[in-house]
């Protein structure tokens, strides 16, 4: 189980945007999502904050055999882009960019600010979240997109 509240509290001070299933939950989706997906800013100081924030949770590549020479440090983040990780607080996907949406700076104008479990965090806006999922073109997202569009219609009709 992913402890969303504890993970978000750990990430306080890190520049990131909630995307994916967690963002859908924030907008009112009733679908089960297993992990926290975030797009993080790739500036060196933010990467440092991200590494320090998650270090106590022992991040490790999700589904990988144990014993890999994986080191959770700034070099690992700089050397990669997207990371699917298991931590002691649950699963988290750290995304440098997303298909159809781009990087942190590209998504920033399309965010809303949430106060969640005592943390101020940015979340991708509903319309942009739908557009990103549509652009990604993954068959597994079709039902989720349909639900998000229904949420958009319900909100517009309020």
């Amino acid at each position, binding site marked *: *189980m*992913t*402890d*969303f*509240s504890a993970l978000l509290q750990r990430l306080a001070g890190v520049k990131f945007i909630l995307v994916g299933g*967690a963002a859908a*939950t*924030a907008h*009112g*989706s*009733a679908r*089960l*999502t*297993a992990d926290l997906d975030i797009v993080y800013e790739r500036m060196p100081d933010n990467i440092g904050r991200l590494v320090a924030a998650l270090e106590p949770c022992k991040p490790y590549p999700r589904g990988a055999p144990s014993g890999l020479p994986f080191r959770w440090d700034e070099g690992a983040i700089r050397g990669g882009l997207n990371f699917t990780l298991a931590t002691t607080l649950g699963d988290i996907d750290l995304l440098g960019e997303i298909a159809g949406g781009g990087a942190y700076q590209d998504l920033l104008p399309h965010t809303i600010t*949430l106060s*969640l*479990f005592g943390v101020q965090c940015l979340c991708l806006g509903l*319309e942009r979240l739908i*557009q990103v999922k*549509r652009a990604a073109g993954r068959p597994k997202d*079709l*039902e989720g*997109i*349909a*639900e998000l*569009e*229904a*949420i*958009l*219609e*319900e*909100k*517009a*009709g*309020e």
Partner: protein
Amino acid sequence: MDRKTPLPWEPDPVIEVYKKDIDRTLIREHLKLTVEQRFEKLMALQRFHEELRRAGRSARRPA
């Protein structure tokens, strides 16, 4: 009754087919919750899901 309004983009016919099966009463209930309550509900659902999986594994184990 559905409260449909035009989307800000061209509807996708495939997504429109999926949309027919979306439970809008469930959406309306979720929209009444705060964002924090939506996450608390998600975590409760995850716990239930885990418990079902545990029970399933236990039932498959030979006696």
